């Protein structure tokens, strides 16, 4: 066990965990930030995506010991009241079915738009293809990312 001081959503959290513990489980089991989801655990689905220094990365394979002073943002920290343009677009386009994958989708989309504010459809697909949605909301995800890009 070791003590880690983590920067998450603009705050500092101290946790005492094994150094191989993935960030995902630190968030969920130790910090009560359950918006970040577990689904595959092997970086194949994107349900667990968070921002690390602005990049969308799967947190299920990211050992807590690798974070150092990296800035982590989770779905809970994306905006104060759910009013990030991507969240607004997700509501406007009414994307979710079961909703389980959607936090990861939103984190992937918001990281993309930060880097590339007006992506083409092909660029949207390249960025979003990592995220699985078992309910098949892909059409609406595409539409919502494009909508968010237009309505910032």
């Amino acid at each position: 066990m070791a003590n880690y001081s983590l920067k998450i959503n603009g705050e500092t959290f101290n946790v005492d965990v094994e150094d191989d513990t993935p960030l995902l489980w630190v968030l969920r089991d130790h910090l009560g930030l359950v918006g970040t989801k577990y689904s595959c655990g092997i970086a194949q689905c994107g349900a667990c995506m968070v921002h690390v220094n602005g990049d969308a990365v799967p947190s299920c394979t990211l050992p807590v010991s690798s974070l150092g002073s990296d800035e982590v943002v989770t779905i809970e920290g994306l905006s104060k009241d759910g009013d990030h343009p991507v969240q607004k677009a997700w509501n406007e386009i009414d994307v979710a079915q079961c909703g389980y994958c959607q936090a990861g989708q939103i984190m992937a989309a918001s990281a993309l738009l930060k880097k590339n504010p007006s992506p083409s459809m092909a660029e949207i697909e390249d960025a979003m293809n990592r995220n699985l949605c078992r309910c098949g909301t892909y059409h609406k995800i595409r539409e919502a990312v494009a909508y968010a890009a237009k309505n910032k």
Partner: protein
Amino acid sequence: MAELMKTNRRDFLKVAGTAAGGLFIGFYWSGCDSPKMKVLSDEEVLSEAHNFNAFLSISPSGDVVMYSPNPELGQNIMTSFPMVVAEELDADWEKVRVFQANLDNDKYDRQVTGGSGAMPHSWERLRKAGATARHVLVAAAAAKWEVDASECSTEKGQVIHKGSGKKIAYGDLVNDAAQLTAPEEVPLKNYKDFKIIGTPVKNVRNKEMFTGKPLYGLDVYREGMVNAMIQRPPFGMKIKSVDDSAAKNVQGVTDVVVFKNNVAVVGESTWPLMKAKKLLKIEYEPDGTVESSEDHERLFGELMEKGKAQVMRKDGNVDQAFSKAAKVVTAEYQCPFLSHSPMEPMNFFAHVKGDRVELVGPTQTPDRARMETAQLLDIPTENITVEITRLGGGFGRRLRADFVVEAAELSKILDKPVKVTWSREDDQTGGAYRPAVRYKFQAALDENGKMTGYKLRGVGINAGNTTRENNFPSGSVDNLLIESIDHKSPITTNAWRAPITNFLAYAEQSFLDEVAQEAGKDPVELRLELLDRAKKDPVGEIHYDVDRMKTVVETAAEKSNWGKDSNVMQGFSVYFSHRSYVAQVANIEMENNQPVLKKIVAVTDCGIVVNPTGANQQVRGGIVDGMGHAMFTNMTFVNGLPKQTNFDTYRLIRMKEVPEIDVHYIDNGIDPTGLGEPALPPTGGAIANAIYKATGKRLRAQPFIEQKEFSEFNLEIKRV
């Protein structure tokens, strides 16, 4: 014209409210009876909103609170049910709040999500609840104004008196309304007058979902709770020995428990359990038959040839028809096992305290979860509560209760509240798959290409009846034989979204394409001919409405420009399942000598479309699901062990693999039927038939990409 519905005066219970906080009108569902009315205090509802499971209440502030009885897994029932009530109530949708009801057999019936059955089951009751509430509110306003109720109308949570222009909000009427008696009959709206139904209404849980609020079973964390993960045995195996020394040494593991053929690792948090589970050394021995996919191939062949089949349906004399036939068409089709793979893996929270049990989690059948727990622990059902969380997908997997019962059993052994989490690997290997099935079809054609005989023989592995014997084309062929054989296997199976039809439809609709080809007919024309026959002079019993099926076929042909553009290679498919009719056309165009799947056109008759945005999700989601599994997904076994244990090898469809989907509905005003499943079955057939048109390659087994025919071309998928 408004329809008149009977309500039963006896069931309409009236209780005067006294609390200073105000009054509520509550409707309790009681079996199939009419709504009952009860007045509750403001405090009662607001402080105990979550425990109050009545269906509908209206507060003095005008808030309309509804409890959604059915588990929500993405079918959007939590939005569509309240829409129906709000429609007849003429509620202000902005003031509608919805909560998930707990399991309560006294207040609700059919608290199940499965079979696309919730809307047809509840449609009329929901409307009656709303209409009854509206009726007493109007009566209260009329009495207050001393006018006739017939002079009053309602709009957005207000009663309006036309003559004087007076308006009053529902919230200001609940006290008076509570003193009134429910009417014998309530008029229901004509569907043409609907204002909420038929408009796109956003999911009532959008905000919680896009801000990451705890909603799902895996998000349940309770005081004093421990976490557990379980290593379950391969199919057909039992434990011989367990060496848990390495697992126990993992920091954070507090217990290792062996029960039945399971080994549970227990601790405070999840990660140490994932590590420890991998360190368990478990030796298994066969517990009977252990099967591999190779065995299934052999069994399919043997049983198809010589197995003893159950005759599901027999019309006319098939032997004669086939012996007289000018041409016989024969083909075999096969589909593999599939796992359900909802994005949220199985999990459940259980707390057994003496003879009381608290269960919390994602289940499609809370009642079954409770019953099986009661049986296992020998505890009366009334001592067991079930709180239903949101489900991160289900697809039928959560119709079983295995994951609930084992959590309860473990809680009892540990004497602690426990949440059991399945890893993705556990979820993939833990069973309850879509059964694998092989079909043999035969058609007898006369010299004019008319189908005079039809034979279908299905062999399934734990599939039950592999056929739908009274479905199309039954009723349209004089001589017909439908048979089914089931092989009992240790590999567990379970309903998988659109059970049986999810592969039968592909096989049948592809085979009909082969028949059309051999008969020299257009595939749409062939279907319409058969349907005409079934209409004019049906052979035996049929379970589909010929006119509705014909309408979706014709509309799909029209919307897809069927056969009009020689550059577009089209595949047709139509299927009736779960009370709805869906026809689909897949469009392939050749680009640089490559077949490119460009579009799928779907025409659905599910009666009245309650929520177009939700309906589009179900139709497109069903098509994406049907396409993904037909194209890519396979589940194979070696000695009882599933081989595709995670999403690296178990291939689910991704964004870039989804073509444009064009969705249409038939507007016929018929009471709505379910939509969670019916769009899935036709998709595989439409795509396979279009591929045949474009390449001449007939794909007779799924997944398509693993067929050798598929490797001879390269199907591209064009997105919007």
